[in-house]
């Protein structure tokens, strides 16, 4: 439907112009562009970290611990004498990597579950969805702690944990999508064309049910990063002393009180900017999807 606009007055001969319309989606595009550029910058920083900093990720400058920004340490050093700037750069690798991998894993697992449950329905659906319920109602941090305690701290486990927390949402999303798609004629068309159930699932339902997933996933990446930071804050993050923003923030957070802002503000900003990038991207995509639905 139309935008509800009243038509402004004016001389009879001149055309009457209804404002708006031209801005539709421009903000969404801007958000998408802004988000994507932020993320590309972060990704570039991650890739070229060694070129952008003279210190290594865990290199200790023992003579200079907790020095303020400036001098040979662009953003100062932390309590271990490690260079903040280079750690902030290197951390992008882990943070981006874990967030993306975790969300990817969650998407894959959740989508598969959702597809199967939504398509076959019946008892299989009931059972799968109850399992999803169980996982979803299981508290995040306890799940994370359990995985960490079970498998030890490590990148893979963090990915598994964060994926486990997120997968149920995708399963629900995809299931709901599949259930509504299943009622659409194109599925009947595929069946009457002799497609096998697997074929229907794989070639017809899967590609179409991914639309909402595509929109949610970026938002979810941002959220995954925050979860990762939270886990680090609880000491369940990446293995020490690998650089990870959340871990750096949680180590340095208490320093702010003492005026040593540089140990936690730079990683905090990096995390913030990166999450914001994902959020902008996700929100932009969602806007666009909503606009399309309208």
């Amino acid at each position, binding site marked *: 439907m139309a*935008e509800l606009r009243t038509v402004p007055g004016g001389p009879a001969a001149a055309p009457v112009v209804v404002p708006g319309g031209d801005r539709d989606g421009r903000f969404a595009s801007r958000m998408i562009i802004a988000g994507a550029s932020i993320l590309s910058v972060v990704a570039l920083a991650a890739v070229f970290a060694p070129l952008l900093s003279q210190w290594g990720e865990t290199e200790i400058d023992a003579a200079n611990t907790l020095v303020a920004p400036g001098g040979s340490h662009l953003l100062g050093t932390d309590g271990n004498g490690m260079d903040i700037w280079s750690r902030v750069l290197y951390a992008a690798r882990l943070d981006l990597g874990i967030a993306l991998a975790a969300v990817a894993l969650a998407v894959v697992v959740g989508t598969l579950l959702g597809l199967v449950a939504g398509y076959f329905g019946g008892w299989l659906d009931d059972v799968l969805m*109850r399992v999803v319920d169980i996982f979803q109602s299981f508290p995040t941090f306890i799940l994370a702690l359990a995985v960490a305690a079970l498998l030890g701290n490590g990148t893979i486990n963090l990915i598994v944990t964060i994926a486990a927390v997120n997968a149920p949402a995708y399963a629900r999303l995809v299931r709901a999508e599949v259930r509504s798609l299943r009622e659409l004629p194109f599925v009947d068309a595929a069946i009457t064309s002799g497609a096998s159930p697997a074929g229907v699932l794989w070639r017809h339902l899967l590609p179409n049910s991914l639309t909402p997933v595509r929109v949610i996933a970026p938002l979810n990446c941002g959220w995954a990063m925050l979860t990762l930071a939270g886990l680090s804050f609880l000491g369940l993050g990446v293995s020490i002393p690998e650089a990870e923003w959340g871990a750096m923030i949680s180590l340095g*957070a208490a320093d702010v009180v003492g005026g040593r802002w540089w140990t936690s503000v730079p990683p*905090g900003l990096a995390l913030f900017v990166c999450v914001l990038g994902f959020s902008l991207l996700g929100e932009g995509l969602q806007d666009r999807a909503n606009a399309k639905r309208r």
Partner: protein
Amino acid sequence: MRILRFVVRRLLQLVPVLLGVVVLAFLLVRVLPGDPVRSILGQNATEEDAAAARARFGLDQSLWHQFLDYLGGLLTGDFGTSIQSGGSVGSEMALRVGPTLELVVISVTFALVVATVLGIWSAKRANRAGDHSIRIFALVGNSVPEFWLGLVLVLVGYSILGWFPAPNGRVDPDTGLTPLTGADLVDAVLTANGPATASAAAYLVLPVLTLVVGVVAPLLRSVRASALEVLHSESYAAAKAHGLRDRTLHHGYLLRATLVRLPSLAALVFGTAIGSTVLVEYVFSWQGFGQWALRGLLYRDYPVVQASVLVIALCYVLVFLIADVVHAILDPRVRL
């Protein structure tokens, strides 16, 4: 009553879920490495001492036996005995659930109100400066780690400005609050304790703010999108084209239709908020449920972990149930 039937049916559906949670939690804590009794025995304990302690907590029994005992206890409302404190888990938990629920409920409610007001405001001004800034603000808030925000709020609100009480608890002990539910503000109001009410409210401000900032963005986004959809819907256009007054339009045609989709998201947000209070509790010395559960897990206090998982799961599923009911009430199209 159809609603009642629906609720009963949903409650029945919860049984397998909760049972699953119980089983999963039970197994999970037991496969975790770590010995629950070692930490209560001291350094000089021998293997026999440890065995005796295990026997005290029934940990020497077969897994089945332990599980059936535990299940039997649950059915009679007995959550077992904490290994760390030796006290009843049920009563300890009762002390801890109130404060956390109070925090989360107030935060989510507040976030919902803010999201609704701002979301609709924003949608009505879609693609104008005000709309853009609100959305960006929400996104920014959403992108800050909660514990970090909490620390900064403490630094600013307490240390620098001195507007808020020290982050050392939930209510000033000098106000002599009599605990009833554990939720201090509620207790203070119930016991008509003026100073305690003021104090509890003051203590709530910063943690609530922290949580609200963390959760408001998705709610706002959803309200705004729904409101936009309604504003662009044929039905709204029809009402507008029939020349209805703005007030009528707002209350009769926009508000309810906009809020229809909010409950399930609110439930989801509630769930994540419960999950993330553990951090906020730490920062604000809130001593709620999250910290208790975390400690239980760190020390492998099996009954505590099991109970906390179960209670969180219960909250979660109940909130979802409530959300569904609210949705059904808001949306006449929902078939129960």
